[in-house]
């Protein structure tokens, strides 16, 4: 199996525990370059850095009330750089939500559960 090449990854989530864990997990085997943003706006401002993958939380305004939600950010990302790979991350175990994000251009949809980290790492390897 070919070793995965290091990629530039943006993680957008306002839960510090999640971003820490995700960064921890993703940098363990491959030296991915992970940048964490607490809000979608911050991520948008840095799109010029051309990330290979963006891992985007669906529900982004639980802490920062005025922040835009993941769906809006997803649309903005897709508008600005249509070719970027977006993995949508959510605790919403609702298929309708998943459908909507996929329709709006997300590549993958991952539910935050015990297997989420593993799934994301696998997806990034395959890209």
């Amino acid at each position: 199996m070919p070793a995965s090449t290091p990629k530039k990854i943006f993680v957008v989530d306002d839960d510090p525990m999640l971003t820490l864990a995700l960064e921890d997990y993703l940098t363990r085997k491959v030296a991915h370059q992970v940048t964490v943003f607490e809000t979608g706006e911050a991520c948008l401002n840095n799109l010029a850095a051309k990330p290979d993958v963006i891992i985007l939380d669906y529900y982004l305004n639980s802490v920062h009330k005025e922040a835009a939600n993941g769906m809006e950010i997803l649309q903005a990302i897709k508008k600005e750089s249509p070719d970027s790979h977006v993995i949508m991350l959510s605790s919403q175990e609702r298929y309708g939500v998943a459908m909507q994000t996929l329709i709006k251009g997300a590549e993958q949809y991952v539910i935050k559960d015990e297997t989420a980290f593993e799934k994301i790492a696998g997806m990034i390897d395959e890209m």
Partner: protein
Amino acid sequence: MLACSTLLYAILAFYYLSRVKRKTIHQYLVILLALSQLYSISAQTSLKPLPKPFLSVNESDILQLLTDARTSEDTMYYLLAQIDNLGGPEMHAFLLDNLTHFLAINARTLIYNDEPLRLYKEAIDLWEKGERLQSIALQKRAVNAYDKQHRVFGPNSIFPCIRLHYNELNLPEERLAYYKEKLVYYQNYGPIENTADCYHAFGGYYLLKADYNLAISHYLKAASIFKTYNADGYANAHSVVGWTYYRWGNYDKSKYYLESGLALSKKTGNYSNVQLCYIFLGLIAKQDKQYSESMKLLDTALTLIVMPRDIDVYTLLLAEKGGLLLIENKPEEALPILNRAIELRESEDLPLANYQGDFEGYFYLYQYFVMQKDWTKAEQILLMTYDKAGTSKSNRQILKLNKELAIFYNAQSKNIQALPYALAYITLSDSLRNIENTFNVSQYEEQQEAISNEVQVLGLEQEKKLQRNYFAGGGLMLLLLSAGIYSRLQYVRRVTKQLAEQNIQIEKAKLHAEQSERFKQEFLANMSHEIRTPMNAVMGMTSLLMDKKPRHDQVAYLTGIQKSSDTLLHIINDILDLSKVEAGKIDLEAIDFAIRQEMKQVKQLLDHKAIEKGIQLILHIDHNVPDVVIGDPVRLNQVLINLAGNAIKFTEKGSVTIEVGMGQGAGGKVQGVVGSSQPAVGNQQSEVEGVEFAPPENTQLLFKVSDTGIGIPKDKLDRVFESFSQAHSSDNRKFGGTGLGLSISKQLVELMGGTIAVESEEGSGTTFSFEIEYPIGSAAKLLETKSHDQMDGSMLNGLKILVVDDNEFNRTVARDTLLSKCDVEIIEAIHGQEAIDLLKEQDFDVILMDVQMPVMDGFEATRQIRETFPAPKNKTQIIALTASVVRSDLDKCRAAGMDDYVAKPFKAMQLLATIAKASGREIRHLENPASAEMPGKIGLAELSEIPIKPVTDLTYLEKFCEGDTSRMNKYISMFLDTAPGLTEQITQALAQENYEEIAGQIHAYKTKWIMMGMTDAKDLALVIEQACRESGDTISIRKNVDSLLALIQTAVSELKV
């Protein structure tokens, strides 16, 4: 004059009322007329005539009626008389509420004297509160109550509604079992008409299992019974037969029954049936490729959507309409409709999709993406739909999806991915067909045909690929594989079938075991609570009477009551104990205690029993035994009392000896290696603890209890530790007791790290022995242990105490107990609201608060005091008086803001000590004296300390961090750092009733629950979040938030260690 005539009517009404017992509901009408006369005369209004009965009642009619129901009592009479024939469960709840309101004005007792109605109303209330299993249990009781009146159930009455409720809970097997039981009942005792609903329920079960043949035969049987007396049931049965045939694929028969069902349902005014018939007729037209006809039928059905609860049907309709548009090659029009269907479906949390509207919606959306050639999305959606179908347990859906996935992957040349689905499809369709054709002979040909079709499908798809010269090798491989499948089919089929059968057996056994375990736990919790409440009054009042200088003969009776209630409490504790030990829910204490003292107490306690029987009780303590050790004195006491108590019970002459000496492992003196190898009385934990090599600190003690009693026969020796077994079968009666003592002792000893052994010779005596390793303790720490047994109540003098309890006997006990021991002022309230009103006017030092009370319970009252009262009243000390000993309830007490609690039944000293502590008048006692109250003390001490199962589980975190502790600590401290903030924000949001905020806060915590292994918190958080977003019941949100905060609190203390 008016008063006089009103009185006359009242007498008349009560005369009628006294005669209504066990009469049918229609006779209420007569009574109600009398009442209404009473009401109208006293209100000086004229009597309105009863409205004419409606020919067909449907829900919109009822809604119309109910809008002015509160003013028109005549309407209510009519509805009351018709209650069995109206609406669904929601309508019943609404109706019953209105009736209750109305009757509150007239004669509140009426509905509550009618047992079935009362039970039914309670059941619906429970259902709405989300306590659904309890609700079903209550509904069943209501049905039994109706059965006593020998009633025939109408459409939409409680009996058929249980079926729907089970559906919502997705419990098909339980539902089947219930209706089977009732079928036997009605066949034996009648009314025979009620068997129709049973057959109908069976039909539903087999439909779910895709056993269409059996489903239809049961529905038709129901129909033949309904035909004579229940037009709606008859129409319903025909409609259901129609759509079962549709599922089965027999469209001719389906059409016949659907048309019949449609006509019948139109007559009875059952519009949801009419609508469903239209939908399925539309689907049949689609099968016949008459697309415009199909669209017309579906549109007709769409116009019939009236009630919001038809959402399930509505989504099916939208999905099917979207599907039709796809067929007509109008994907742009189809997409928004499909999206709407899915959105609607997602916005409703319907546990079981009766008509699979969601499933079809997703499926068509998949087809949409296929049409758009967006393979990635098509694949994702198909896989998601597959997951969803897996949870809905519908074989038909899983079958269809397996086939679709196989075809899809094959078309994508992903043969390896296609293979498992193809295999699954073939085996599943095979087993389904086996079920379906249990009563059909011509299954073989069909099967063969289907199998070769399947192979052809795979092959054809492959040919296309070959033409495109694309992955030709893969194609060849697939053909080979297909051939392989074909030849191995017989084998696979046989093995799968066997496996499936085994799995069913295992599942059944597992379910059964889980169920009975759950029932046991529930039963124990309930029993303990139910018995404790009256026991508190019995024990409390007895001891109050004892203090009132009773006559000599009265003392004898009172002592009898006291002893009997002590025994009763002891038995309850035994049963509770065993269940806790078995569930691994006992936590041991590790405190310094004077072991010699402790042993003397055991002897003192049992002395009178030995004297009564005329035998000697000897205590022997080896001089090498240290004075103070660290361990759990209560549990050690409990084991010794059990063993010695038992010994006394079974000894008629001679003696019972309790001994403690040095065990074999540690030897007499302090030694280097502790208990590393002992064969006979093996100490399982010693090896583990031996690793610590802490030589001067451990001691191995050997305890022995021997008697000269009847002994235990050899063949029974190995069974003495089993629950519910005494050596001689007649012993139970002769020696009394629950027979649980030895079983508990064995498990407690094992919990303390020892093994219990028994030696016995029949006729000459028995010896029980066990070894336990204790760290040696320090005498200094002993002084910190205090006891309140010798407290004098005077320290409480001058306090003003509010006693809040709805049970007057328990109020009396609390009041008189306090007044007899100290000089305090007592005010009483009968529920939380009254307590709050009193607190507004006066100040109290301490409030003793019962938990479960009508009007306002203790939790709510405490919360209000803490949150809405100005300082310093909001800081009034509140002590819960609770009969519940369930940990979660005690946690709730704390979460609600109570300062302490006393478990009922309580001993006087315990109550005094808790009040003293709360009011800051505590006095520290420096000794740990023996007490005559030992048995009660043991029971109560441990009851109020039901140990908790840890709420955190770091297994996942450990795996995630690959065992790296510094990493783990990083996550743990992150959790610990944020927890107080979360608690504060949630509490604040709760006070402001900002549910959106609560949902947001809780939502952001999901990863934390996962990392800390807080499964309960995770589940609870989900419930709260959903309730907050859907503006659910605020009381239950509060309740759940409290529990969540308690969980976080516990987690913090667990993780801080």
